[in-house]
């Protein structure tokens, strides 16, 4: 159980406003599988961009592959636009150590050389282990390392946050 109250829908509204300010005419959104991908799809529709939205997976570049093995195989990268010279705004639900972002940036560069890569998140929970910083976070909070925060999407498309004690 948790005493933490995070209204994911309210935070989504703030993320939408923040991302809206960051968008340039040639920014493309790339969501990090899985929570970030949901967010990016909804943002792309709500912000009425006329560009396709990308999805990216960290699976093939994870640094904990040796311990965890290969993760969910449904996590695949799909970048339906030219990466060379693109201005990319990565979207994720939660940033913590920054290791997923490191892996995702490696994955991105397997497809080309973007002009710039930035990051916007719903929640920055601190605990960074790499020199990575989001340009926008709808909320900043500190959680015990034992707690896992993850975004869930209901059948109606609405977002909620789940906090779990990790084993």
């Amino acid at each position, binding site marked *: 159980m948790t005493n933490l109250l995070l209204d994911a829908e309210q935070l989504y509204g703030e993320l939408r406003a923040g991302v809206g300010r960051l968008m340039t005419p040639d920014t493309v959104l790339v969501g990090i599988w899985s929570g970030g991908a949901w967010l990016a799809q909804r943002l792309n529709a709500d912000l009425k961009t006329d560009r396709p939205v990308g999805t990216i997976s960290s699976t093939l570049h994870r640094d904990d592959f040796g311990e*965890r093995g290969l993760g969910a195989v449904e*996590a695949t*990268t799909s970048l339906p636009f030219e990466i060379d010279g693109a201005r990319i705004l990565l979207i994720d639900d939660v940033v913590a150590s920054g290791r997923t972002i490191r892996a995702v940036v490696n994955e991105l560069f397997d497809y*080309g050389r973007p002009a710039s890569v930035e990051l916007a998140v719903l929640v920055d929970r601190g605990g960074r282990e790499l020199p990575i910083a989001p340009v926008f976070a709808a909320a900043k909070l500190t959680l015990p390392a034992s707690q896992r925060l993850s975004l869930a999407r209901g059948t109606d498309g609405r977002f909620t946050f789940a906090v779990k004690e990790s084993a």
Partner: protein
Amino acid sequence: MLARRNPQLNSHGELIHLLSIEGLPRAILTQILDTAGTFLSVNDRDVKKVPLLRGKSVFNLFFENSTRTRTTFEIAAKRLSADVINLDIAKSSASKGESLLDTIANLSAMHADMFVVRHSESGAPYLIARHCAPHVHVVNAGDGRHAHPTQGLLDMYTIRHYKKSFHELTVAIVGDIVHSRVARSDIHALTTLGVPEIRAVGPKTLVPGDLREMGVRVCHDMREGVKDADVIIMLRLQNERMSGAMLPSAGEYFKSYGLTEDMLALARPDAIVMHPGPINRGVEIDSRVADGSHSVILPQVTFGIAVRMAVMSILAGNDA
């Protein structure tokens, strides 16, 4: 009494060696096929390489020659960023009298992480898996007449790619079934994945009746064998079978069991034609069929690399 554990699986039921498709649960076969789908897209990138096996050494141990299989394993390992060492054992230690296990002990001392083994003796990869260090993984790349699991898996990937599901298919395997490790692996995989009708097609000398015990329908008549089939897997007729009493001649064989356009017309209109290669044009398959619109022989080769990447990366992520 404790059931003896499948040597391919660890205590969590995860794959640590790939020795045979026989005895592997459907979930593991599906996991490999799903993972292969992910790796197929690596071919579309500017950088056709991912770092999952970075710092790992994969030793290709081919006690029996096979340039094609060895090359696809080598490409797969390199796309995963492994260091690949090819040992043509047929020409080295074994011919100097070193035993198989001594060879393995020496290569382990060179810090091998994975052995890809091709051997003319059935069971050789099992022997290696039993005696190698716990962190070392073994992939069977073909042992004797026994098994060729990655070929079986790439065949399953190909079938799923074109047919989407296994549950209503009729699959005909045509040719030298009795000597074929590919046929054996295919039959086990097709059975596990739920294919309702598997046919073994060929002359009595190459398709004996006791194959029925594997749950297949035995057909000695080619027309009966390919009728309404969704998938036709042609096997290579090995030249060495032609001498001796097994078969009269290549020409005679082609007349009875060669896949011609007329024969293919008996199968379903959307049937696919597969072959593990190398093909013998005019012996088991007509050129017009091999190069025709139903043939998926070359896509099989491409899928084979992704399937081998999937197998190696799944193994490398699991501990004994």
